[in-house]
């Protein structure tokens, strides 16, 4: 064989194979399962009728809207791993990260509403509207279980001169724009809280943004920022070891490790309506999913939620247990959406008026 023929052959084979793989991708795009999972399920032609009698008869995919290294992914693996025992079918958790959760949410919304694709997501949907991330709203999904909320509190590093919220505010008043606080992203819980505080107390913080809780914590411990708002899941161990100093608890929950820490709603009753604003984790499905399937899923996930194993998981992480479903879960979502959207709008972080999106301001 001479060089030219070889060259042509190589080109041809590459072309055919590349085209083949592309075609393969398109036909399987809708039903992603991770390669290593045993029961990949046979086809997308499941029986998605009104009957749930034989549901589930194929593998279910749980889609985490954040990457495999996120808390969301671990939470999803945890609860789905327990729920599959009650459901009698396997649930594989995969991740579709990106766009602050919009990519994965969009993926589930565009999948068949047959209960075989679950959205394992967070409150990120709250800000899709005002942040113009996606047209999808909470109304497009039916919550199966809103499992828990993350509990947030204000922290300083171990040598912090702040002992209560007032110290921070006084310092910020005395040195306008010179008190440096960390946030973890546009529209993140710390960002919303600091916006709220600077608006309410009429102070200016110097805001520095970090990629995630870990980065912000490193900066706090290294003395590069003065204060941060973090959640208990990723930080209680630092409190125990004395590496950070809790200043104000922004929730009404009793956290043993934070005993004696000032509570926002007690120090500032006028801010009590915002108390408890944080992230939550929930499993939901497309709103057009047959009711019988929704019932079956709700039942299985509720049982999983109530197992001692999952309750212990919630407790270990210092979360606030919620266990809401149906109408209660929807009310919770809407309240969160309203607080987050209006704060972003009021501080000028977005020009989209939440009222134009039909989001009501919660009563003062």
């Amino acid at each position, binding site marked *: 064989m001479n060089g030219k023929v070889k060259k042509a052959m190589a080109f041809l*084979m590459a072309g055919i194979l590349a085209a083949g793989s592309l075609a393969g991708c398109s036909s399987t795009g809708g039903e992603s399962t991770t390669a290593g999972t045993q029961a990949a399920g046979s086809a997308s032609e499941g029986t998605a009728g009104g009957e749930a009698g034989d549901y589930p008869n194929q593998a279910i995919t749980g889609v985490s809207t954040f990457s495999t290294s996120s808390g969301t992914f671990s939470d999803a693996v945890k609860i789905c791993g327990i729920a599959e025992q009650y459901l009698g079918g396997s649930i594989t958790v995969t991740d579709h990260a990106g766009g602050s959760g919009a990519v994965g949410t969009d993926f589930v919304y565009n999948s068949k509403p047959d209960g075989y694709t679950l959205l394992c997501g967070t409150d990120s949907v709250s800000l899709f509207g005002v942040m113009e991330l*996606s047209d999808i709203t909470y109304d497009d999904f039916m919550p199966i279980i809103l499992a828990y909320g993350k509990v947030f509190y204000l922290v300083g590093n171990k040598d912090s001169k702040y002992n209560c919220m007032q110290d921070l505010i006084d310092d910020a008043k005395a040195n306008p724009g010179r008190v440096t606080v960390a946030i973890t992203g546009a529209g993140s819980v710390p960002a919303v809280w600091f916006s709220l505080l600077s608006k309410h107390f009429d102070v200016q913080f110097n805001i520095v943004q970090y990629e995630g809780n870990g980065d912000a914590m490193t900066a706090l411990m290294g003395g590069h920022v003065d204060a941060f708002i973090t959640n208990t899941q990723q930080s209680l161990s630092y409190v125990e070891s004395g*590496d950070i100093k809790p200043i104000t608890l922004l929730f009404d929950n009793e956290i043993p490790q934070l005993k004696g820490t000032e509570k926002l709603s007690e120090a500032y009753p006028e801010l009590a309506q915002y108390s408890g604003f944080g992230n939550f984790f929930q499993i939901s499905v497309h709103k057009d999913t047959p009711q019988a399937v929704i019932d079956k899923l709700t039942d299985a996930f509720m049982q999983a939620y109530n197992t001692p194993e999952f309750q212990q998981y919630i407790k270990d992480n210092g979360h606030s247990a919620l266990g809401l479903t149906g109408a209660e879960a929807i009310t919770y979502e809407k309240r969160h959406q309203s607080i987050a959207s209006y704060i972003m709008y009021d501080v000028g972080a977005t020009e989209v008026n939440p009222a134009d999106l039909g989001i009501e301001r919660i009563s003062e």
Partner: protein
Amino acid sequence: MIEHLMILFFEPSLLLYLTGGMIFGMYAGAIPGISVTMAASLIISFTFSWSPMPAIAAILGTHIGGVYGGSRSAILLNVPGTPASIATTFDGYPLARRGEAAHALTTTAVQSVVGGIIGALLLLLAAPLLTKFALLFAARDYFFLSLLGIFLLSGMTGKSYSKGMFCGFLGMFLGSVGMDQMTAVKRFTFGSIELTSGLAAVAVCFGMFGIAESLNQVSDPENVKVRKQKLDRMKVNWKETAKHLPLTIRCSLIGGIIGALPGTGGNIASIVAYNYAKKNVKNPEVPFGEGAIEGLVAPESSNNAAVGGAYVPMLALGIPGDNTSAILISALYIHGVTPGTTLLTNSPDMYYLIIACILIGNIILLPVSLSGIKIFAKIAEVPKEVLLPLIVVLCVVGGYAINKSEFDVFVVLIAGFFGYLFKRHDFPVGSIILGLILSSLIELNLRRALNAAFLSIPELFLQILTSPLSLILFLAIVLLTVYQIPAVKRGMANRKAKKARD
């Protein structure tokens, strides 16, 4: 402490899980298309129902094996299996083309093992010290360090510094596509939801290296011929290892320290180490870039040492040093262990299990990594008309596997087309990939640094001048740039020549 470290020997089954994970990781890392992070997340869902210790051992095995495995495709196919092995292609691939693939693979295995052990010892003995050092790094220091990575890479690859810098900045530009994390503004997304999350660096990497290299070789008939591989140099050459040991130790220390900085890892470490070797090794047998053994020693020892380094902040603070240690953190959460400052007091067995796995794992890596070299070296003998299409397929499939999205497949193919053009005109594509990977680290830290300086440039310079660490990093960048100015370069060369004459 010692009895805790011996846990692996009291529970021999853990050794099996560790080795199993390592073999899986090594082959996954060797396949361009499966990154170490992907392999580790597969293991997570696979080990969910296991008890914590075997699961952790398996994940750590995957990490250690995967970082080593990335070098195999770098040497044999000129496609780095993981971003940390970009620098391995510089001398590894030329070696394989000269018929010395087996020698290159063996050297890599030994260097990875030695580097990995040094990294593990750093973790065991110097973790508190390294953690204090890592906490010193302010946003401006991360900015300088990652920028330094790009400057260094541009200075040492390709024929022209300007072409290298062009590629580095092009990479940074590509990295700015997507939603800005700070303001949620969408940049260069043209209304596409897929672009909102940015271009996947791995997809661009497969395209620029895998597809482009295949096209490049196909278009050059001379290249289609394969070289018979010398298989007699498969035995470990201890004399050579001993000769390079001083370099290995220094590069491993570089790797361990850079690995300990959260967010930076093997990718920057291997480039800094390669540059260090290039500047400091006086008379390599073969020039760097043409198959110098020293050019394999440096990146391979440092990127495996970075594995140990990555677990320094993870064990001390519960903060991941890189993506794979981030996965281990979520595995700990799933198994009910809370990582963080209290890990040592609350679950000392888990704390020492992690250290023991990394230490012992790197020793087990020797036999594991020396396995299959003969078969792997044969890959370099596979006729190109069979091998090249296979690479293309692997890259396409790998691109799809990142996010299970067809969009990334198009990214791979488009990057492949442009990568081919770049290669034809001697633009180093490695700089593009590094720029893309480091772009958010560079940009966000610059913005953070400016914020921390209250948006005032004089204040920023004041902060740089008053911090020794920042000053050193800043001066390094300035000197590097000044040295590359043609007039200065000529002047230096003249002085050197004059000195030689005298």
